[in-house]
């Protein structure tokens, strides 16, 4: 089963994503803090990362940068920040996609996960 890391501080949304991923046959790993997310990334080596950008005390972009140094796995951003400059910045820092939470559903997010893991 393919490991997918979810780094999301909203526990409820993380729960919904986890349930959907399990249903689709993936092995979701959840972290509510960015710092713990990096630890899990190093230890478990997931095949894909779903990363939020807003954390209460951490800078999502810094986390993205750190993660890019640790893994080659595709990182998809899930966030409600919708300013173009943030989207451009995330892509420039190496995120494969930028998904705005309010414009996506768990089903559509899973479709993106499947797309990037097709060849993994």
């Amino acid at each position, binding site marked *: 089963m393919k490991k997918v890391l979810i780094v999301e501080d909203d526990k409820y949304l993380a729960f*919904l994503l986890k349930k959907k991923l399990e*249903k689709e046959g993936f092995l979701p790993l959840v972290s509510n803090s960015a710092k713990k997310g990096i630890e899990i990334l190093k230890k478990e080596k997931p095949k894909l990362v779903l990363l939020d950008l807003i954390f209460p005390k951490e800078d999502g972009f810094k986390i993205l940068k750190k993660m890019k140094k640790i893994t080659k796995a595709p990182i998809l951003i899930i966030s*409600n920040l919708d*300013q*173009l400059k943030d989207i451009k910045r995330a892509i420039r820092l190496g995120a494969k996609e930028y998904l705005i939470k*309010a414009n996506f559903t768990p089903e559509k997010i899973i479709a993106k996960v499947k797309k990037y893991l097709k060849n993994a």
Partner: protein
Amino acid sequence: MKEKADRERIRIALLNILEDEEEARKKAEREKEKTLSIINSLPDGLFLLSQNFKIILVNPQFLKFFNFKKKEIIGLSLKDLLLKREFKNLKELLSKKNKKKIFKKEIELWGKFFQITTIPLKSKETIFLFHDISREKLIEKAKSDFLAMVAHRFKTPLAEFKWTLDMILKEDFGKISQETRRVLEKMYGENEKMISLINELLQFVKLEEGKISLSLSKVDLKAVVEKELKNLKTLAQRRGIIIKTNLEKVPLLLLDKEKIAFSIFNLIENGIIYSYPQGKVVVSLKKKNKEIVFSVKDEGIGIPQKEQKKIFEKFFRASNAQEKESIGSGLGLYLSKKIVDLLKGKIWFISKEGKGSIFYLSFSK
């Protein structure tokens, strides 16, 4: 006798010349002092670069900005100035020192933000002007942070609701009855409206600032239309609206991609929302003479004749629109028009109540 008179006249003439010169010299001196006191009291920092790129004049404000002493600066070359305080951001200015035009740039130096202007003079010297915009930048950042926070705070609960409903409807939490499905679908739709409203409100706040910054790039309108159509696919399906497309390949246009996408989304969304059930919406994109024209045609409720001239007004919703759709911000078309005007395009419509509307957007190639 005549010689003495001549000599006297010459003496007086010479004295007059000397007096005039003295007068002129004093006048020039006063002018110079006036200019210097203006330069010295400027709230902007200033220095003057000589023909051979050495600093020959510097004002107190410049010294104050960067904590320089006058004697450190006078006579310095621009290159040496850059080294003094590690002004690497100023490197670009080095190449501008002998250009003919006025050059302006916003640069961050020493923790402050400046708008730097270089002004080449006829005398081959160059003025460097440093205007402190740190406060404006702070306000800009505060507004931007506020909008980002609002987006996050308002859209997170809406996203949670959306995701939950979607998963229940997909029976991820167990089977649901037909009736449950029906009411939840309705809630999903209402929630989507809220998300759309928040987006419009945020767009409105951004545009109403007065400080509207466009980020222009070469945009493929056909791709933008296709993407927005995809975003609206679910809405159309839920309302049983068939969308027909007629999209030609068109040349790239210099536009603000995010803003034009918003306008296109708004027009297609209106076409869907104000159609009668099972109606048809035709979305076209074509080249017409020197223009590129985008249009959305619906066979829906149309706009009453009397209300047509107000359709682009802030917060205006036509009476029959309010009847059909209770929720709406009245900002969509107002914003779309504002955006299209900013991008130097045209927006107009033809409409008949009860028959439908065609909304057009055009840009010249």
